[in-house]
């Protein structure tokens, strides 16, 4: 009836919206920029095709029976008991066959995609550790030179065309690591290590976000993802391996004193200074990052000052306590932190 027709038109109208919405997306599974996401994206469209076909069949059959009913309205309402339905029974067998073919296609498709994704496990890969915290991401790269770990937070850099193997763990509750453009999501579970392979195929900025509810600020537990060319990546990693740069001017020097001498150093580490706290994100190259507080604010001096003074207003429930600084100290601290590139 008209319900079916309206629904159908609605669906057709929404499909282009979906492609439009998806293509530009920097946090979308259907705008793939990685091998894994790309395999899954093909599976997605295969599934849409199979399911869409089945749905149109159902709507067609429903529409046809309602149309017949409408034409025959007003005829006798005497109920018919067990009418012969041989034609229908045969059609039911055919319909079951069709469903089985559709399901088999999708099951085989899923199996093949799963295997394709699994193949990356055999490759030599860059080793990265990601640990979920309420509500931010600790990220550690294996240092190719020393074999130690280079720590950063809330911003993941990946080399283009090479597989990165992320080992996922949690420091507190269950989180889920998800960079939809590049690969599927995988949970971070206390007491377990999950391995996820990411093989980016397109350079640029993407975004990841925690996908498993993890408490008050689950909504603000995101991270930026930058896919670099291999040369850019090597340069970036080398820069990350270095200790923090010395303050460039007197204001920044005052900022260094504020940051290392006050509350900040109790939770944050800045390699090369006396700040060695481990509870919060590493700030050694803080100024090189794109955002603050796990994707909550865009990086700027004003945002840094606001975050230090009023973290509970910007991200209620965050573990970061408010730090009362004089305007001059606040300005100095933000200059210093912005300079940590």
């Amino acid at each position, binding site marked *: 009836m008209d*319900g*079916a027709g*309206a629904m159908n038109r*609605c669906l057709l109208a929404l499909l282009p*919206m979906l492609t439009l*919405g*998806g293509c530009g997306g920097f946090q*979308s599974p259907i705008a793939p920029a990685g091998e894994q996401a790309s*395999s*899954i994206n093909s599976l997605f469209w295969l*599934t849409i095709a199979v*399911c869409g076909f*089945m749905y149109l069949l*159902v709507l067609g*059959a*429903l529409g*046809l*029976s*309602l149309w*017949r009913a409408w034409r025959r309205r007003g*005829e006798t309402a*005497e*109920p*018919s*008991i067990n*009418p012969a*339905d041989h034609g*229908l029974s045969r*059609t039911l067998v055919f319909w*079951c066959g069709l*469903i089985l073919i559709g*399901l088999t296609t*999708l*099951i085989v*498709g*899923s199996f093949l*995609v*799963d295997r394709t*994704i*699994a193949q990356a496990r055999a490759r030599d890969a860059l080793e990265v550790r990601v640990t979920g915290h309420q509500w931010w991401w600790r990220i550690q790269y294996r240092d190719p030179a020393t074999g130690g770990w280079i720590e950063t937070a809330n911003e993941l850099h990946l080399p283009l065309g090479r597989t990165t193997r992320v080992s*996922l763990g949690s420091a507190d*509750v*269950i989180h889920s690591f*998800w960079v939809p453009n590049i690969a*599927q999501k*995988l949970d971070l*579970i206390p*007491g*377990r290590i*999950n391995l996820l392979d990411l093989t980016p195929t397109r350079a640029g900025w993407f975004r990841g*976000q925690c*996908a*498993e*509810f*993890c*408490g*008050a600020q*689950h*909504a603000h537990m995101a991270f930026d993802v930058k896919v670099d060319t291999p040369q850019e990546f090597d340069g970036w990693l080398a820069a990350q391996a270095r200790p923090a740069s010395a303050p460039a001017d007197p204001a920044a020097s005052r900022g260094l004193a504020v940051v290392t001498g006050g509350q900040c150093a109790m939770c944050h580490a800045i390699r090369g200074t006396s700040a060695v706290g481990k509870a919060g994100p590493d700030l050694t190259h803080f100024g090189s990052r794109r955002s603050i507080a796990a994707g909550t604010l865009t990086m700027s001096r004003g945002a840094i000052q606001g975050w230090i003074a009023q973290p509970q207003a910007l991200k*209620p429930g965050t573990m970061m306590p408010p730090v009362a600084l004089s305007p001059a100290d606040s300005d100095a601290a933000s200059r210093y932190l912005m300079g940590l590139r």
Partner: protein
Amino acid sequence: MIDPNARPPAPPEQLAVSWRDAPGIWGFLTTVDHKRIAARYIFTVVALMFLAGMLALDMRLQLAAPDMERMTPQLYNESFSLHGSTMLFLVSVPVMEAMGIWLVPLMLGQRALAFPRLAAFSYWLYLGGVMMLWVPHALGVTPDLGWFEYPPLSGPAYSPGHRADIWAQMITFTEVAALAASVNVVATVLKMRPPGMTLARIPIFVWAMFIASLMTIFALPAVMLVTSMLIADRMVSTQFFAAAAGGDPVLFQHLFWWFGHPEVYIIFVPAAGFVSAIVEVFSRRTLFGHVAVVLSMLAIAALAFGLWVHHMFAVGLPRLGNDFYTAASMAVALPAGVQIFCWIGTLFTGRPRFDTPLLWVVAFIVTFVIGGLSGVMAASAPLDQQLTDTYFIVAHFHYVLIGGAMFPLFGAFAYWYPKATGRMMSEFWGKLSFWLIVGGFNLGFFPMHILGLEGMPRRIYTYSEGMGWGPLNMVATIGSAIAVAGGLLFVANAFWSFYRGKLAGSDPWGGSTLEWAVPSPPPQHNFDHMPVVDSLTPLWTQKDGLAVMTGLAVDRREVLVTSVVEAEPEYRQKSPKPSIAPFFAAIAVTILFVGSIYTPWALVWGSVPVGIALTVWFWPQRERAHTGPLRVRSR
């Protein structure tokens, strides 16, 4: 046995006296009438749907535009937790039980359920669960971790206070109540069918309730176990889910979803029963593929227990397991597809009349199939690892739960309303609320599929403008508001029609099953005489009035017990009289459950009043079963 010339004697006044409740508040507290108990369930459910619906609207307003600050994250988290827990545990499952408690005895030509006092107990305990969740909410203590509270977030370290305990114990309440209701339905269907109603002649809705009740009995112990383990972890440091002490948080997820997936079908299978019943009567022909539909329900029930892992594909389980559960989950599409075919086939070959109940069935097919197909998408392990925990899944489960269960429920409500009240619901307002709900729902929830594909995770209280999710969220909010308006109109229509509706008579739709043989609303003893059934659609095949059986006592409460397969009369069983014991037993259990979130000793001392209440309840005083002469009469 059958004397074609005999006529049943006039209904003895005595029968009405024997089955009468005491007047006033005492009658209210002691009644064991399945119809009154079911009505209570339904009133409670409607009130809760209103409250949880308001929470939903509140959340939709918060998400309507980026960076909204009208709700704090705490309030938002409490809202979705309360909304989900209420809708799943206190609305969807209980309302299906209520429909079963109300309809099953009527469809079986019986005067009562197998265990009338157990039915009263299950309602009172369910009410205890409602209060366990909503009274603390009124006092400002609300669970805030969603409708499944995964440890360690819900463990003692990350959730101090009693929010998580309240949630866990609310589940214990509702699940004990649901088990009581399910055992009752199973026993009634197996042992209290009217003579002649062999297994092959059981009405389709009774099959659906029977299958859903069996599923309930197998599924619910898992969730009671897991929430009890959570409470033990929180109260006496058992460390079941503490990784650092050798426990495993994933164990919680396995046990929860071992219940959680069957739960979805416990809600859906009765809805499929509604749809089958409505399609048959409104198509004016016996349901095409009755056996196929029953077997499909059984297949769904069996498969339901073998695919819980599809809720956990992102946990990082072995790939072979993922492939197995992908195939198992997709397999459900086959029986579901068979059912859809049979319903459409019945419409195709029947002579449908387009009253509101049938409109709901049409909307159900159009909407539910979308939810079913998005379920097929989410069944694929690799695809699900992109879709799970996003708005795509939010859209999916609202399509299956609202489109797949609530639309048939609204249809069932409109269909059986005249039987329950004696009056018809207004068709005009019924159709208007239908279009508002169906249109608003699809407008509100279809865009969520796209939001999920644009990367919007579920359970976030806000998002920034740069994500580009604003416009579709605004559409979703507008659609939801329209649907809520439609829902309010539906309820208003039900109230208005109760006083002003057209008188219905006993059989306004030309129904096929036994409940349409009794007056509307049915008298307390339901049937003056036990009907005798010769087909699946007795009211269509016995046009000159039902054959009945006499011999049941009229001066006391007595029901007929029949054999499991052939429904041969076996003996007359005394049916319990009204009693206050179920009410007191429920209060005693409530005290035990509430106390046990504060101290483990509540389990010890709390068991004393429970023991006393049960002793009073079961004090041997009933007469034994009777085996006097039973006679079958025709007409």
